[in-house]
């Protein structure tokens, strides 16, 4: 049973069509949800590790700006945005997927991006500048693979045709932009309100 849980994501990344329809129709929802949360967690962990321990030649980020908590945000927020935007759109566009299915399919699509970190965190420490081409090749391949899995997952979960899936994905990206904008607006206004109240409080306190 336990072994099967580990095997399933690996089976999914090579047989996405079969595995995603299993995920939608056959498998236990609770187990897949737990598995996808574990994948998300591992993704965060590997990203933090790669930021900290990748080889000098490929680690081009300023160590002063490195913040593990922000790494969590950088991964969780886009995934949630994607799922929310996709869910909001597909409910209007006759998609058959439930929110849980969208979330799990998205998380399972991240598996190649997560797996590629494991060897390359070590390997990037023993390569020269000329050999970094392999590093960049592998990571771009992983990104493309993940994008493909995301596409297949979305298609299977909603039972869409390929062209409709592409359309939905493009619309989802636009919707994510809108959501980001609204969030910024929201937090901007909240910040203004808080500072307003704070200033009034300060003013009253200092007057007396």
């Amino acid at each position, binding site marked *: 049973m336990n072994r099967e849980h580990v095997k399933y994501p690996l089976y999914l990344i090579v047989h996405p069509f079969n595995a995603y329809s299993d995920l939608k129709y056959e498998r236990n929802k609770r187990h897949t949800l737990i598995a996808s949360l574990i994948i998300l967690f591992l993704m965060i962990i590997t990203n933090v590790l790669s930021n900290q321990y990748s080889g*000098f*030649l490929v680690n081009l980020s*300023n160590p*002063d700006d490195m913040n593990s908590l922000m790494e969590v945000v950088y991964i969780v927020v886009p995934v949630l945005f994607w799922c929310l935007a996709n869910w909001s759109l597909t409910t209007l566009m006759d998609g058959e997927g439930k929110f849980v299915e969208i979330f799990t399919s998205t998380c399972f699509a991240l598996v190649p991006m997560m797996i590629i970190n494991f060897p390359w965190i070590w390997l990037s420490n*023993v390569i*020269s*500048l*000329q050999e970094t081409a392999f590093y960049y090749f592998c990571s771009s391949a992983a990104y493309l693979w993940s994008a493909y899995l995301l596409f297949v997952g979305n298609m299977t979960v909603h039972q869409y045709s390929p062209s409709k899936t592409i359309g939905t994905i493009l619309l989802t990206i636009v919707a994510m932009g809108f959501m980001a904008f609204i969030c910024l607006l929201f937090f901007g206004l909240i*910040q*203004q309100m808080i*500072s*307003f109240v704070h*200033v*009034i409080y300060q*003013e009253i306190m200092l007057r007396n």
Partner: protein
Amino acid sequence: MRISIPKVKMYLLAALCCLLGTNIGVNVAHAEGSASYNYSFWNDTTPAPAAYEATFLLNGAQLGVGPFKNPSDIHVTADKEIYVLDSGNNRIVILDQHFKPVKVVDSFDREGKKDTFNNPQGIFVTDRKELFIADTGNKRVVHLDSNLRMAGVLEAPKSDLLQANFDFQPVRVVVDKAQRIYVMSTGVFDGFMEFNADGAFTSFIGANRVTVDPVELFWKKMSTQAQRSRMVMFTPTEFTNLDMDDEGFIYATSGDYSNNPIKKLNAQGNDILRRTGYLSLVGDIRYSSDIGPSRLIDIDVTDSEMYSVLDSKRGRVFTYSGDGHLMYIFGGLGNQLGQFNTPAAIERVGDDFLVLDKAFGEITVFQTTAYGRMLNEAVRSYYRGDEEKAFDLYQQAINTNANLEFAYSGVGKALLRKGDYKGAMQYFKESYDYANYSKAYLLYRKQVLREYFPAVMTGLIVLAVVLLFFKKLRKRMRRQGGVTIES
């Protein structure tokens, strides 16, 4: 407590002000004033020890030649004679290396008659002590021989390359060893004007490229012919100054911040400046948006490919090594010693700097601190190929200023040459020198592999042989066993 209406208004106003205050990001590059700084690999300002300090001021009255009036250029010869071009008084004041006046030239002998300058803007002195003066008001370049008699004059040239209404307004001039004369003239966008030794105009050299704003291009494409003719034309930016190094390359500055304001031109007019440093060569990297980026108005090249540029907006002098590393920054605008009002020109006298202030008619003399001498010497030693000395000096420089990233690279290169690959890697890492780190790493990896390869390989072979042997043994045992069972 009674709160009157005006008071409520005041509260509101205060609240509004504070709200505004919270939104305006406070990220001014660094404290204004004399605190010395440099930039890091990540384009952050880092504190640095002062490399130069202003020691004294020179002005005309103090020198006993009468006050300078709007002086616009200085030139220092190889034997440290200083020529100050006192434009407002139409004269040249010559000082010796101890800053004592030697001679004042306010007129010259032109075929037996006396002739004078009219608002000259630029001066150049050759190794043979021949003077070239851009006599802007008279629209000519005057060439005086070492006895200060006129040897030639360049006037508005006639050429197919020039427009019919061409206005010759020379402002800066340099002369190379082959007596070719390069003139910078106001209103000329095609680069510097090159004259041959006989004073005949040959060509333009080194025009800046036009940079086109896509938005502006779009509007231009959209508008009609009549509208277009009234729009601003896309023209290349003019140069602001030029200087020549010992090898005859022209170093030039232009006012265009976004398009390589510093250039090193070869004889064909191609830009061959090495830009291998961490920063783009533009003066200040971080600046407040109300003043804007640096405007480079003068350049001075010294030995070992070091060059310094002068920013007129903030009055700072930036010195770069030939590889494009920012070595040190000094100067500023203000009223104290070491600050200027309207800096116009810089020159080096040996390792001392002269900065000419146009409005005040003063020259500020800057002299090196121990740190400045160390850096100058380190860059020189490295340029000469004296790695041992460069290693020591860079090591000292790091001890004085741990933020000086290119110095780590200098130490790393010396260690690499010595064969200490691991140490070199460490230093290259400190200096973010990826290419050299990779080089050192490859050598280190090879070294490690060479060391352990025989042992690892022997181990593997022994293991393989042992395994094979065991397999055979087992087979034989099994066969024997089988035989016993069968029989």
